[in-house]
């Protein structure tokens, strides 16, 4: 028997095939500033925007290109354009100027990013992702950087570094988790937003963002659904609802003189499982009609989401304008907003500032619930109420007939969507609603919820199909917490208040925790609601048998 050598390893001779398989990469010896050119990986980035999207929006450099190509077909003066754009934005956004200057690289944010947690790629640490742009800032805009160069942490803007920056800007989902932990409140989302505005000046948009933007601009919603198709779709739901409940609901569209305009992300109109939430809204509104709710949908403002937020502040404004314009045209008093994450970041933190002028001369006023008389004082300027605020108020005032046992087959947990969590602080309202419509509710571990919630991995326009590896890495921390809740408490349903979540999380669950399904809160609400004139319900909106009410035929 031969003696086993102590330092045994898979034999690896240069040129030997064994040197090409399975072995650990050599540790880097250089710092991050000198790492070799970034390798754009499949599964880790989204497809480039098709030229017609950019043309539609009048955005620069529309062309066919791909991030996998060596030549990105940038305009001749790309460097100048980028740096001029940077200078302009430093003067317009205090956040940008400040966040370029004050980071001390303390590392508090480093392990807070879900993409870093899931991948271990050091450039996914928020601090380093930001340094990619900061180093360029130092080189071109600070004296120390100009004189000392790399010693001051400055790097010249080059083609390779632009590619690297772009690659990592689209590995940030603008979830703001890092900014919770930063002692100076530096917000990677803000830096990503700026970085994307800058790279968009060169036409480096991705299609998953650019297409919804162009569609939304033209047709009023991300899917590019024309008005008649939108109406048909909801009428199709009317039939489905009748089949399940025996109640025929009647949604109104573009109706002038209604008191309230309802706006929700179009993703819920066309994609499962969001569609069940959409049906939930329709049932709720129908029930409330006789209690005095006078509400209409709009085909023109048929999108709550706003991928402009992931493009530029101007595009965000252009898309968002439709809400006030339509509210004014229809003469409504206020707007009710559906369950959506980034939509509520825009509505809560940007909408009033950007577009309130459009509501001038309209009939809009401080929102008052027509059913309970509750004034929504926290929305008196913007005049837009979140539907969980609205529903929580209804439940509090006993306006809904609820039978939570209809949800007894579910053990529910709640995923705080990043934007309502860290851009709004909407924590108690959704929980209050869920606890009133479900008997079994369990929280996930504390450092994965509320302001510390983990992203679904597909926020900020990264919820495409082609970047599935990226999404699975970013979603791992969330899935891991769900898995724990499933194992400890038997959780089999995760509720969320975000249409992107409802599109992204089912994929994540399929991969990591297939026992858990995804729902919107208003699907749970209407499944628990006892409707006027309902037939004996045997199934829920999904057609699944209700506990203890199975058809005994």
């Amino acid at each position, binding site marked *: 028997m031969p003696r086993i050598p102590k330092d045994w390893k898979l034999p690896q001779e240069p040129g030997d095939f064994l040197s090409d398989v399975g072995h650990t990469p050599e540790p880097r010896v250089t710092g991050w500033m000198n790492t070799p050119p970034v390798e754009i990986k499949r599964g880790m980035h989204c497809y480039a925007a098709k030229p017609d999207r950019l043309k539609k929006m009048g955005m620069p450099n529309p062309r066919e290109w791909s991030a996998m190509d060596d030549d990105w077909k940038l305009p001749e003066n790309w460097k100048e354009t980028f740096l001029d754009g940077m200078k302009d934005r430093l003067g317009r956004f205090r956040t940008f100027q400040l966040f370029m200057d004050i980071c001390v690289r303390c590392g508090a944010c480093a392990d807070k990013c879900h993409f870093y947690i899931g991948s*271990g790629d050091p450039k996914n640490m928020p601090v380093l992702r930001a340094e990619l742009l900061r180093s360029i800032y130092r080189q071109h805009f600070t004296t120390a950087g100009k004189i000392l160069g790399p010693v001051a942490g400055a790097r010249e803007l080059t083609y390779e570094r632009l590619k690297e920056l772009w690659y990592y800007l689209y590995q940030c989902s603008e979830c703001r988790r890092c900014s919770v932990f930063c002692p100076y409140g530096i917000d990677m989302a803000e830096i990503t937003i700026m970085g994307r505005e800058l790279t968009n000046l060169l036409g480096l948009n991705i299609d998953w963002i650019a297409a919804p933007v162009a569609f939304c601009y033209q047709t009023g919603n991300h899917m590019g659904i024309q008005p008649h198709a939108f109406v048909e*779709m909801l009428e199709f739901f009317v039939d489905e609802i009748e089949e399940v409940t025996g109640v025929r609901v009647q949604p109104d569209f573009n109706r002038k003189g209604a008191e309230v305009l309802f706006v929700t992300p179009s993703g819920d109109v066309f994609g499962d499982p969001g569609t069940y939430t959409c049906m939930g809204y329709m049932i709720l509104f129908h029930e409330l009609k006789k209690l005095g709710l006078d509400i209409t949908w709009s085909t023109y403002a048929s999108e709550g989401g706003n991928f402009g937020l992931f493009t530029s502040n101007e595009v965000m404004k252009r898309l968002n304008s439709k809400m006030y314009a339509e509210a004014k045209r229809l003469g409504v008093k206020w707007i009710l907003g559906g369950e959506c994450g980034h939509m509520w970041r825009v509505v809560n933190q940007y909408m009033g500032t950007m577009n309130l002028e459009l509501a001038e001369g309209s009939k809009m006023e401080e929102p008052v619930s027509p059913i309970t008389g509750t004034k929504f004082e926290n929305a008196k300027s913007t005049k837009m109420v979140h539907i969980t605020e609205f529903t929580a108020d209804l439940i509090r005032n006993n306006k809904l007939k609820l039978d939570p046992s209809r949800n007894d087959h579910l053990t529910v947990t709640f995923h705080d969507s990043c934007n309502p969590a860290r851009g709004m602080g909407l924590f108690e309202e959704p929980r209050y609603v869920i606890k009133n419509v479900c008997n079994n509710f369990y929280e996930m571990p504390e450092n994965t919820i509320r302001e510390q919630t983990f992203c679904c991995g597909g926020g900020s326009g990264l919820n495409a*199909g082609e970047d599935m590896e990226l999404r699975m890495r970013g979603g791992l921390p969330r899935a891991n917490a769900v898995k724990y809740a499933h194992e400890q408490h038997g959780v089999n349903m995760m509720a969320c208040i975000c249409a992107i979540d409802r599109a992204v999380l089912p994929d994540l669950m399929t991969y990591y925790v297939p026992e858990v399904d995804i729902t919107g809160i208003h699907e749970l609400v209407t499944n628990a609601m006892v409707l006027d004139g309902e037939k004996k319900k045997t199934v829920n909106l999904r057609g699944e048998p209700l506990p203890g009410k199975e058809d005994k035929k």
Partner: protein
Amino acid sequence: MSLKNLLTDNKSSIVKAWCDLTLKSYPEESQGFFKKKDQFGNPVGHSLCEGIESTYDALLEDADTDVLSKALDGIIRIRAIQEFSPSQAISFLFGLKQVIRDGLGSKINKDGFSEEWAVFETKIDGLALLGFDIYSKCRQQIYDIRVESVKRRTSRLLTKAGLVYEIPEGQSDQSDLQENIANINNS
């Protein structure tokens, strides 16, 4: 005394060394982070070390395929979507040989466990093949999810708009559907 006893007695040091070796496949800067004990803040490190421990236990207990698959799944499921080539993703399984040889090699020779060791090595080889199956399954699942994801997003619309010919159950033709979706996306 048998090899099994030796391996059981040295479990903690072998498992630790195996975890460390596996973590070495990640960027140097992040290995420290992955070693942090924090189940929810560090799911990669946690799943990896937990999986490695249960794999080791299962190996020693001569557990069946189901148990071993379950133990490996937690690790490979994550590595299948990380920055690894397929061989890199599962090479950590061979690392167990290295770890045991490093730690107990001389003892194995001295105490005459060589034959048992040969058998155990074969088991590790089998483990690697099992890992390969799991890896392939995970990758296949990613592709499936990609397709499903696109379908789910627009399926209702396509059905409603009458753009998709509804194929009677049992004969669905995936490629037709995808083509239709592609056409709609392009239009």
